[in-house]
């Protein structure tokens, strides 16, 4: 086993002496993160997200309690820095603003929205089900995503209020505290009160709430930095995989094979070397962004486990490339292509939720998508128990890919690599 570490540490030392590799491993993700942070205004304002004055158009045809509560929330002082609402009464005119990229989204509150949730005090009945419509601007996925998050949280509170009201009224009837005939009036009253509570809680921001109830600020760089780190992680593992073929070309692999060392141990050492390099790269990027950008990556234990498993998943891909390809040039070319494709598919550049379902499904073959899930969850205040799915997926991915690669290499011979 000592030789396994020996080979791995030798590879780690070699990669950290290769200036061009270091630039792509460490400098490029830093620079891109910095660039994307600058584009989003992360470094220019006091907003934690770096995003300010998101233009949103609200068309409120409801004019009921809930519709008004929603409008008041978006026009409240708490969201004044974040959003810049425009109130219109014409939906088509609002959509034109989106089409012309003057608005990130349109929130359309149809007529009768409140009545579809709060019972009529006279009859106790609800009107037909009516939904709020959200038209997003595809060229502003991040801004639209933030608006959608605010809207979702409002709707979620309304839903909680509706269910609470129903339960309260039902229990009061069952306990004989009120007559059935009084239920409609009480329900309407609770509905109004709840809408007021929703307004009072208009401190809804893009902040997320942890399980413990503690508010955690979501930094836009917490999305971008892991995205870049994971994308360039694929470069690192491809480079590491390439070294297996390069060693054969440079005759150091055959030389290792004539030392009293089994080929399994040599292959293990090479794979462990790729893994160590990947872990080192992620830790340096995490440490660097924490220090330079004051970025909060989340729970330390979860972070360490996620870094390890992301490195395992990515290393699996690196080893597979080395196993099935024959020349260092092939690995470099295919590796670069894989890095970019996985970066796009895995959500390193934009939020996957804006993409079609089949793309989201396909993205699951990438360590980037699972890694992004994990890092985002941790940045939003999650802990290890909240990232068990990505951790398991990344570990499984690594095991499956190692197995395929090992079988391939065994079949074709390590010395022929």
């Amino acid at each position, binding site marked *: 086993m000592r030789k396994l570490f020996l080979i791995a540490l*030798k590879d780690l030392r*070699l990669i950290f002496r290769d200036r061009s590799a270091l630039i792509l491993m460490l400098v490029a993700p830093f620079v891109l993160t910095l660039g994307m942070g600058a584009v989003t205004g992360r470094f220019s304002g006091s907003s934690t997200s770096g995003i300010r004055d998101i233009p949103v158009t609200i068309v409120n045809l409801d004019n009921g309690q809930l519709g008004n509560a929603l409008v008041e929330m978006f026009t409240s002082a708490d969201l004044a820095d974040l959003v810049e609402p425009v109130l219109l009464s014409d939906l088509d005119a609002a959509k034109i603003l989106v089409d012309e990229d003057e608005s990130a989204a349109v929130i359309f509150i149809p007529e009768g929205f409140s009545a579809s949730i709060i019972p009529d005090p006279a009859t106790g009945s609800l009107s037909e089900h009516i939904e709020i419509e959200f038209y997003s601007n595809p060229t502003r996925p991040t801004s639209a995503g933030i608006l959608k998050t605010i809207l979702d949280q409002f709707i979620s509170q309304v839903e909680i209020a509706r269910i609470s009201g129903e339960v309260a009224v039902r229990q009061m009837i069952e306990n004989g505290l009120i007559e059935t005939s009084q239920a409609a009036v009480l329900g309407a009253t609770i509905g109004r009160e709840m809408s007021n509570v929703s307004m009072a809680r208009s401190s809804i921001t893009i902040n997320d709430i942890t399980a413990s109830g503690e508010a955690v600020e979501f930094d836009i760089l917490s999305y971008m930095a892991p995205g870049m780190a994971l994308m360039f992680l694929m470069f690192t593992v491809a480079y590491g995989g390439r070294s297996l073929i390069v060693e054969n070309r*440079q005759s*150091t692999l055959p030389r290792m094979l004539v*030392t*009293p*060392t089994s080929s399994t141990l040599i292959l293990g050492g090479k794979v462990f070397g790729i893994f160590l390099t990947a872990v080192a790269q992620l830790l340096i990027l995490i440490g660097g962004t924490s220090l330079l950008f004051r970025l909060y990556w989340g729970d330390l234990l979860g972070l360490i486990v996620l870094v390890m498993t992301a490195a395992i998943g990515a290393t699996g891909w690196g080893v597979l490339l080395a196993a099935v390809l024959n020349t260092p040039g092939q690995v470099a070319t295919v590796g670069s292509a894989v890095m970019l494709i996985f970066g796009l598919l895995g959500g390193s550049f934009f939020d996957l939720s804006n993409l079609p379902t089949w793309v989201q499904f396909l993205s699951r073959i990438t360590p980037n998508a699972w890694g992004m899930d994990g890092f985002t969850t941790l940045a939003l205040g999650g802990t290890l128990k909240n990232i068990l799915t990505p951790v398991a997926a990344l570990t499984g991915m690594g095991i499956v890919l190692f197995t395929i690669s090992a079988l391939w290499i065994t079949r074709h011979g390590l*010395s022929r690599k």
Partner: protein
Amino acid sequence: MGSILEVQNLVKKFGDFAAVKGISFEIKEGEIFSLLGPNGAGKTTTISMLSTLFIPTSGDALVCGHSVTREPMQVKRSIGVVPQEIALYEDLTALENLRFWGQMYGLSGKTLHQRVNEVLELIGLKDKAKHRIKTYSGGMKRRVNIGVGLLHQPRLLFMDEPTVGIDPQSRRAILDSVKELNRFGMTVLYTTHYMEEAQELSDRVGIIDHGELIALGTQTELTRQVGETDTLILHIGENEDPHYLAGELAKLKGVMKAEPTDHEIALVTPSAEELIAPVVTRADQLGIKIQTIDIREPNLEAVFLHLTGRALRD
């Protein structure tokens, strides 16, 4: 002295191509044994099988009593290998390379430290040990390449064309170090296509061509196969036809064999001195100008020519 290496009818095929066709020989402990042959003769393939890198298609070899096919790990512990290529990490220093390879051979602690220092002393690079390999000259790289093979003090050292592509000074240093190692008891299997190296170093020589061992013995035994003959090498101009001239000279009395190569003709004769005058006269009659004439007494080159009809460098 007993045999340290016994090669038994070793065959290696790559698809339909047989790189080594059933060679057998023995090396006694303390010997320098050279495998001499042109490029592509099967020397490296043979070394690769003996060092367990390639599995033989058939046949076997015993290294220090261990079978290369059945006990590869014991074989690996007994041998040192100096490959033809520079098998070093260019971005590591000589010291780091030697330490890495020493550990790969199971050395550690004080032993490793001591052996690395001894090898650096032996290859004469102690003062440049902390320089990266990529800053070294070709000769210096060759010396480190050899040093790696010596770290664990193997009983049997395989050296595969260790002087290819280096300057005469470094070549001289390497040949001297091989002799030095042998003086200290190390057995050496040395492959080369340079006849002079085989002649200078070897106790015994095996001549290999097209995957077959075509001659084996001491230099005296081998040259005796050629008989008491000399070889006359005629150098002619680039525009002359060596095949035509060889055909004409073969008709002269005293010419046993006439072999044309590029701008040269090799004439095998019982007496080179007596043949010079008739050769020059005949060439003159044919209008072909001979630029220089070399006389070679029986040597391994002549043996190879005698056995294959080709010069060793072909």
